[in-house]
């Protein structure tokens, strides 16, 4: 167990280092500096700016400096917003994005799993057909279209909810719905397939033969076993919600990290892009490691020992 965890963490760190290095090199090699604008800056000011941000040092020195900063947890300054650092921008946005993300994950699990179970129990009946239709639509329709539709109907036509910004629960309904629809569809489909598979197994027949009630068979035997595959996609699911939040936060003008990331791309704010990329990569890698560690705990059939050790 411990060996597996250590190995997994080392692997994650290596990936992170690879991403940081690649990103750093890509952004430094880019044609046009961060201060290239429509209006040309006077050479003296440009020189001062470049000295301030140490852009004239050799690449390898800049790289080492950046890493020194990273070890202190410092992601550097923002090029566009003079008095702000990448850290402060992330710290400002993170609570909002975190709230949005957690609620979306929970909603997609709370609706997706029961929908999948119903679909499997009513296999081939009208409930299953309708849910399948909704599922494919949920997978196929991009989040920004869902968001726009919600905005037109709920906010503009019916005036039920505020169109944008961030505040109480009223402001959260549409973004959370838009963010969780896709993942919900994926979960529904996966739960359905896995549940159908489990229901066909011999131990379910045995449970019925023993005279157990439908309720016990479903809750004690079928459901726990069919949820194991759902855990495996939690990683990609969270990644989907995180990247989905870039667009959703921008549409609803939510002051989260995702919106800041998109703005930094529009602004070509290199240090901010670099910092955000590292932040997001680290987050996703960390979550994947957590899922990988939890998964074997849920399913005793999967051991973390490799063949050689077994």
């Amino acid at each position, binding site marked *: 167990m411990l060996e597996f965890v250590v190995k997994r963490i080392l*692997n994650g760190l290596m990936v992170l280092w*690879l991403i940081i290095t690649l990103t750093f090199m890509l952004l430094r090699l880019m044609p046009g500096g961060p201060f290239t604008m429509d209006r040309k800056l006077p050479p003296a000011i440009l020189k001062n700016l470049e000295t301030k941000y140490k852009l004239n040092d050799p690449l390898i020195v800049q790289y080492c400096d950046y890493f020194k900063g990273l070890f202190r947890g410092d992601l550097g300054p923002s090029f566009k917003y003079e008095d702000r650092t990448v850290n402060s921008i992330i710290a400002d946005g993170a609570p909002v994005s975190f709230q949005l993300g957690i609620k979306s994950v929970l909603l997609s699990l709370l609706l997706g799993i029961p929908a999948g179970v119903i679909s499997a129990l009513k296999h081939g009946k009208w409930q299953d057909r309708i849910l399948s239709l909704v599922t494919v*639509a949920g997978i*196929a329709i991009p989040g920004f279209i869902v968001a726009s539709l919600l905005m037109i109907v709920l906010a503009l036509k019916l005036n039920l909810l505020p169109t944008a910004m961030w505040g109480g629960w009223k402001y959260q309904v549409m973004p959370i719905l838009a963010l969780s629809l896709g993942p919900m569809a994926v979960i529904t489909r996966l739960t359905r397939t896995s549940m159908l598979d489990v229901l066909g197994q011999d131990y379910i027949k045995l449970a019925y033969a023993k005279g157990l009630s439908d309720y016990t068979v479903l809750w004690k035997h079928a459901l726990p076993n069919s949820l194991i595959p759902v855990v495996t996609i939690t990683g990609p699911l969270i990644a989907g919600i*995180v990247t989905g939040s*870039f667009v959703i936060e921008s549409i609803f003008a939510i002051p989260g990290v995702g919106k800041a990331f998109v703005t930094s791309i529009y602004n070509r704010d290199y240090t901010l892009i670099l910092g955000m990329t590292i932040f997001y990569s680290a987050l996703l890698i960390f979550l994947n490691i957590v899922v990988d560690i939890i998964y074997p705990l849920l399913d005793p059939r999967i051991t973390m020992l490799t063949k050689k050790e077994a």
Partner: protein
Amino acid sequence: MENVSFDTSPVVQDISAFEDMKTPSMSYWQDAWRRLKQNKYALLSLGIIVGIILAAIIGPFFSAYSYSWQELDSINHSPSWEHWFGTDALGRDLFIRVLYGARISLSIGVVVSLINLGIGVIYGGMSGLLGGKVDRLMMNFVDILYGIPSVIYVILLMVFLKPGLLNIFLAMGIAGWLGMARMVRGQILSLKEQEFVLAAHTIGANRKRILWQHLLPNAMGIIVINLTLAIPRAIFLEAFLSYIGLGVAAPMASWGVLANEGVSVLRVYPYQLFFPSLAICLTLLAFNYLGDGLRDALDPKMRL
């Protein structure tokens, strides 16, 4: 011993009885097509896809407008007989822009998927075929790359490269092949232990021939399914990139760019978002349904 006789006639009769029951012999692809034809949704989807492709290729020739032509006296006109989908803020005909958008979005979907497939087949095929240490090394490399969140990685590449069609092909092409490589490798690994490969070995076929003539054709079903499902994924990702301002350059516009422009005037002219969104949804739904139908038709596990 003399009185033990083998009467073979009933057995012969049995075989002939079975022969009568046999369905006409069909190749794998004929059988798959027969199954697909029974799936109404998949057929309808195929029809929609063919229709959209034809409209994208032929449509612009029959239109009086071009995608960049601006009519300054008809700005933000609602849909009418003259402009079927209305006009945008620069007085451009939206119908023709959606048709041109189809060309761009579809070609992105197809080209990107084919690049992914090409790299995936070569990498995964080699890894599976060579096996042993090489396989382990090659798959470790894929595992490491798999840890990189691919959307963020594509965004970065697009920030680095200038926005444009070729660069989208490049960035998305080199970012999305990992899944394909894993899938092809898995298929090759399970196929290469089978007798027909051994037979090919014994009559002296070399590795290259075995891969291209024996292994890949047998993995083709799974490859086709994955390709069909990769196309909508690429269109989806491109729409997403365009949406955050990293798509093709103006005045060209993919569906994602059109939708993005539509959102900015959502409150006043909702039709400008509606039509590009409709095109995106219809295409993605059709490809997904077709992919699901193909999976049912081609997946050997489903064959009875």
